[in-house]
């Protein structure tokens, strides 16, 4: 994948992430659900690049999410933590790499399903690290509430991933634009087997 194109995609997607988190928030019971465009971008990139590029791309996207997360801590302050989303996104990349050979890559449902699975894996990692931190750091963290919200968020994000997939895979001009960045969605061999 072209590095300049990746930087542009990361910049735009992070802008959408920060700009639309609140406006797209859904109140379901006591839980707040909002979609994550960075998860969709990471899944899309992992679907169409080499394993090395996937690892680097997910690492950078995860770092950007970590840096823009104002972690609530006791008192009026917030904190910045580097790691939870970075590790989570790298795991997401590995999950997508492991199963993408079994799925039809150029299908919106594939993008939605992998975003759901990868997003759930990412949030489990984030919840795990923050729960561990809550034993020695003043983070305000209710693990039960967070897990419910985060699985809801993964489902909500998957719905948006399907919409993004429809635009990217079913509108030829958009497909051309996306593929011009170096992403390749042609079908690979199942489990990477040799021909």
């Amino acid at each position, binding site marked *: 994948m072209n590095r300049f194109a990746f930087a542009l995609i990361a910049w735009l997607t992070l802008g959408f992430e920060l*700009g639309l988190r*609140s406006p797209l928030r859904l109140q379901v019971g006591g839980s707040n659900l909002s979609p*994550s465009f960075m998860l969709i971008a990471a899944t899309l990139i992992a679907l169409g690049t080499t394993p090395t590029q996937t690892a680097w791309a997910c690492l950078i996207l995860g770092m950007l999410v970590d840096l823009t997360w*104002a972690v609530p801590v006791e008192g*009026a302050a*917030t904190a910045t933590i580097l790691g939870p989303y970075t590790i989570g996104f790298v795991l997401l990349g590995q999950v997508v790499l492991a199963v993408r050979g079994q799925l039809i890559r150029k299908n919106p449902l594939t993008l939605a399903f992998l975003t759901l699975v990868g997003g759930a894996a990412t949030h489990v990692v984030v919840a795990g690290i923050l729960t561990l931190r809550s034993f020695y750091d003043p983070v305000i963290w209710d693990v039960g509430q967070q897990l419910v919200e985060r699985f809801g968020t993964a489902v909500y994000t998957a719905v948006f991933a399907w919409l993004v997939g429809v635009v990217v895979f079913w509108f030829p001009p958009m497909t051309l634009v996306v593929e011009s960045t170096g992403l390749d969605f042609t079908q690979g061999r199942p489990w990477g087997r040799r021909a």
Partner: protein
Amino acid sequence: MLGTLVLSVTPIRWLGWLGEFASVTRTIVGPVSHPVSWVGRRLRSAPFLEARPEALVQLERERDHYRFLYEQQIARNENLLRQIEELQKGFLVSTDQPLRQLTVPVTGSSSDASSRVLIVRAGRAQGVHENAVAVTDGVQLVGTVVRADQRSSLVKPITDPSAGLIEAQVMVGDGVGIPCALSPQHDAVLKGPLGEVPSGTPQPQIGDLVRLRDGTWPAHAQSLVVGAVAALEPSKDTPLRLIVTVRPTVDVTLVSEVVLRIIDEGAP
């Protein structure tokens, strides 16, 4: 990757230096997040669907503003009386500090849903400082600045679950209020026990305004509107006491701009 693993479990007190990188990231992404946020917040609040005359909206704002000034004067009188008493006892009292109001756009929010922090496009370069109070619609309290960087700041809304307890008064009559202690809930409301209603005082009703009366907040923020009473129910532990649920008059996480009330250090 190993470094990330180590950083992910490093105690927060050793990660303060990451704040500068976070600030730079927010500044770089601002040109994208601001227009996207503006469009999203406008569509979500959808003022064009309400079809209310602009003149009526303006008059309501002016009414709310003058009521706020009136309530604030009452609070100020009470404060002055207390200061007189303290002066008579020989204590030193602080004088009023000069205040400046700065209208700033909201360019986004935190990247994780666990935090409802708002990013605003003004920072130390514009005189913004931590604990500056953010309001909208002239009198609706939004929250406080929890981090001021060079070009951007973070505002923690009063409805953020980590925002902490707020002491306020349910206004039941002309300058008459019943104290309550409100804590933010996960569903964007504040909830807490209502103080004892003195005899002869009207009972609180749904829709009554709730105003800030909290000594931990700056004097200029007293009497700002926290919200309106959305529900009143008996306490489960002590049925004779009421639990009040307060909802801000606007969704404070969806505002597209806020007014920051800044203490002007450079003023004479």
